[in-house]
């Protein structure tokens, strides 16, 4: 489980040391509830497509119980799966509701789980197969030396190579260096910011010359969205970046870029 915090073993009670060591060996083998389920299915020699939910659920819950008895952290993911198993089990016990459509998909409550298990199994195996390849830097190596004759020929004018993650990460690290008050809208919050909306408008104007206000709010026609979009438009107008016009009274609002960017006008030192 990616979320399990790491603690130092030696802070543990000496009596339990042996137990913990053994079980941590077991438990690390299970990369989440799906992995554990697959293991139980294999161990019981069950057919994935026809698993006995009663057997699997009992063993799964036993496993969690042991984890708890050993005071191992049981991640939420394991508990979610336990709940899913119990739910399937209880649905199997219930008589079919007459009112309900005998939808073929719904007949067997195990179907969804079986489908997930089969799919998970595929990717687990695919992971092992790709992990078994000869990896660069592990089994396979490339030349690392730079040709001294050529290093002088380096040129910075070439195309750029950078990933999106590096860009976001650079911004994230920058923000950590800077006092919070420098920012007006970085604080996390679900609300739509005017800055986001300005970006969206600018991006639309990169694609076409003329944009209708309705295009901005079409996907998300809420009061908040309309207000924020409108404020963003006013802000852009104030910055003289766009011109707004309206075809007729109560007609659509349109806007176009106000200036053609002139890149010769670079601020110089």
């Amino acid at each position, binding site marked *: 489980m990616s979320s399990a915090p790491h603690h130092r073993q030696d802070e543990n009670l000496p009596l339990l040391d042996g*137990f913990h060591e053994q079980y941590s060996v077991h438990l690390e*083998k299970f990369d989440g509830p799906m992995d554990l389920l697959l293991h139980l299915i294999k161990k019981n020699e069950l057919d994935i497509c026809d698993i006995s939910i009663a057997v699997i659920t009992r063993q799964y819950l036993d*496993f969690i119980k042991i984890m708890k008895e050993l005071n191992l952290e049981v991640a939420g993911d394991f508990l*979610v799966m336990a709940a899913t198993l119990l739910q399937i089990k209880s649905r199997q016990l219930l008589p079919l509701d007459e009112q309900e459509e005998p939808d073929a998909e719904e007949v067997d409550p195990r179907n969804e789980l079986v489908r*997930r298990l089969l799919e998970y199994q595929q990717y687990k195996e695919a992971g092992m197969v790709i992990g078994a390849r000869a990896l660069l830097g*592990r089994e396979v190596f490339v030349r690392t030396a730079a040709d001294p004759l050529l290093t002088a020929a380096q040129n910075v004018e070439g195309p750029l190579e950078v990933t999106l993650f590096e860009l976001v990460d650079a911004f994230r690290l920058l923000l950590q260096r800077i006092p919070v008050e420098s920012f007006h809208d970085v604080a996390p919050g679900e609300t739509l910011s005017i800055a986001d909306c300005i970006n969206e408008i600018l991006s639309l104007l990169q694609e076409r010359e003329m944009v209708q206000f309705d295009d901005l709010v079409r996907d998300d026609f809420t009061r908040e969205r309309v207000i924020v979009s409108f404020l963003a438009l006013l802000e852009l107008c104030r910055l003289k970046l766009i011109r707004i016009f309206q075809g007729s009274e109560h007609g659509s609002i349109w806007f176009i870029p106000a200036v053609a960017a002139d890149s010769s006008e670079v601020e110089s030192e």
Partner: protein
Amino acid sequence: MSSELSAIIESIIFTADSPLSLDRLCDLLTEFERSVIKTTLAELVDQHQGRGGGFELVEVAGGWQFRTPPSLQSYITRHIKSRAAKFSQSALETLAIIAYRQPVTRAEVEHLRGVDCGGVLKSLLEKNLVRILGKKDIPGRPLIYGTSKQFLEIFGLKDLKSLPTLKEIKALDEQPLYERQEELQLEPGKPVPVESDLPFD
């Protein structure tokens, strides 16, 4: 084949720090025909294969690169530290899901694996094996992920199509790939031999 062109191509690939595509070679060597460059490349591959030397010319991540054969690993690591990575099972599973299902969201990966994948995903992003492709056009606009060029380079793949298909992998599984996965013991008391996560090492 012009042996001069052969030497030129070899030297360019040799000094490049990442695999060079045929397109790129043609851009650099405009005085030669594309078809001639292509044939020369194929001849170079054969030549190095035939030599059985300490490195070979291989096609990887859409380009050509000199690489050492895996068989010489034990000698090379005597003087070079093995830089890469032992991948954990979670990293490999997550990578496999992203590789086969891309573009894919974090929620989709987590649904398939049944566990939170934020930490693994971030580490794959930092290692440059996975990249952000953009945002999905559904409510909430979640980020979508795909594998990077570096993924192909590290895993020695020509392109995404050369990943073994899931069907092929399934066929492999009929062979006893799994046999080495040990039995889980629920009863405490018995010592369990510590094994590495992966059945291949």
